[in-house]
Structure formats: structure tokens, C-alpha cells
């Protein structure tokens, strides 16, 4: 079981390194070899995830402003996901941590996230 776990993680890390090098070196908007968004190909409209490959390219080059222009919620979600990972990794959370976990990742916040994503989806096609 431990060996499988190590194997899994090493494969994941190898892919992450390949992914990072590729996206850091090549700008997806100047290159035809990157996957296209099927929603945009079909409808001509942007989905909430459109621009995330370009945003990752800029983030890996530390150009946060350009990344935000490509996909703002992706950039905004990164600190939130980081905090969430820390909360998930705590094995024996105490009462205060659980209270904050409930506040930051509870039902209300999840619905706010859904609303933000859908609003973003609509707005980026109008503006």
C-alpha cells in the first residue's frame, strides 16, 4: 500500500513538473498545441474556465496582473484553495479550527462560490 502511494505521488509530481515547464515556457494563446475549450468552440461564448491555461502561463511567470486579466476567478481562488488544503491536512482539528472551517468552507460559502462562478460566467460574456 505504501509503495502504491509513493508511486502515485511520484507520477503526480512528474506530471506536475512537465505541466509547469510546458505552461511556463509556452503561451497557450500563441500556440496551437494546447487544448481548446469545447464550450467556446461550440457556442463562441466563454465558460468560467476559459483563459485558465493562459492565466497559469502568466502565473508561472509571476505576471499576476496579466493572469488576472485572462481569468480573474482562477487567480482569486488560489489563496482560498491553499487555505482549504491546510484545513484538510489538519488531522485532529480543535474546536476553533472547526468553527473557522465551517465559516470559510460551510454551506453558505459554497453557495456564494457557485453564485460567483455563474455571475462571472454571465458577465464575462456581456462585458
Amino acid at each position, binding site marked *: 500500500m505504501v509503495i502504491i502511494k509513493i508511486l502515485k505521488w511520484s507520477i503526480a509530481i512528474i506530471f506536475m513538473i512537465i505541466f509547469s515547464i510546458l505552461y511556463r515556457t509556452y503561451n497557450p494563446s500563441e500556440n496551437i498545441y494546447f487544448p481548446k475549450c469545447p464550450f467556446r468552440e461550440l457556442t463562441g461564448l466563454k465558460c468560467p*474556465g476559459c483563459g485558465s491555461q493562459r492565466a497559469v502561463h502568466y502565473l508561472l511567470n509571476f505576471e499576476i496582473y496579466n493572469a488576472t486579466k485572462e481569468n480573474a*476567478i482562477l487567480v482569486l481562488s488560489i489563496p482560498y484553495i491553499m487555505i482549504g*488544503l491546510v484545513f*484538510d491536512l489538519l488531522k485532529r482539528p480543535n474546536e476553533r479550527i472547526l468553527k473557522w472551517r465551517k465559516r470559510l468552507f460551510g*454551506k453558505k460559502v459554497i453557495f456564494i462560490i457557485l453564485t460567483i*462562478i455563474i455571475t462571472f*460566467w454571465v458577465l464575462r460574456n456581456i462585458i
Partner: protein
Amino acid sequence: MKKYFYTDGTNYFGPFTLEELREKNITRDTKVWFQELDEWKPAGTIPELADIFKFVPPPIENQNSNLNNMENLIYQKPPKKWLLEAILVTLFCCVPFGIAGIVNAAKVEDRFYAGDIEGAYRASSKAKLWTTIGFWIGFTIFVIYLIYFVIAGAVIGYY
């Protein structure tokens, strides 16, 4: 005449007759023993002592313990709800699968704090399902493009 003993957990008292025992203010939870019993038993479970508790209302411990459980839930960790993974799937690959994951993450949270632990676990596995489907679709597309990229690069390199 039958003789009864009762215990407070550390010491035992007795022997008492049924009449004497009646005056000892024992409760249904008090462990009693008499010669026919193999071990100490709660007084409430012995039919011949039922008479003592005729005018004592039955315990309401069931509702109380439920209430305590509900309060304790706030201090427990709900099952994994796949929220972070679902957000990433939404933003990187597959909006419908990601949204299905996020909705189920909300259900995990909702059901867990409503006391429906089993339902929370069901929602958790659903959230996992949608998120992993989304992840593997995205991953497969990425790998296909990666292979294409390498082959195309090699071909261009030749000419």
C-alpha cells in the same frame, strides 16, 4: 424474606427489605442485587421493583443524548467534501462536472450539520465521483495534447 442490596458504584448497601429499599431514594439506574441475580442490574429493569418507580416519570435520556450528539457535531469533522477539487475542475476543465461536485459539497455540509451523517457520506461519494470524472477527462485531454505536441515537435524538428 428477600433481601436487596444496592450500590453507588464503589460501595454497596444492604441488606434491605423491599420496604426499606423503597425509602432509599434509588433511581431506575441504581444497580441492585439480590440472591437470584448473577450480577448487579439496574433497578429499572427488575419487574418486582417496578412498583418503587410507579410515581417517578420515565427517563428522558434518549432525547437528551440526541441533543448532545447534535451539539457535538459542531465539533466534529464532516466527511471530505471535495470542494477544492471541484472548484479546480470547474476552472480548468469541465464546468458541468465541477458544478455537480460543488453542489454535492454543499449537500455534504448541509446534511452533516443537520445530523444526517449517512446522507453526508452519500453526498461525499457523489461529489468524489463527479470531481474524479471531471479530473480524468481533463487529464486525458491534456495527455493527448501532450503526445500530439511531442510528435508535432519531432516532425517539425525533422524538416
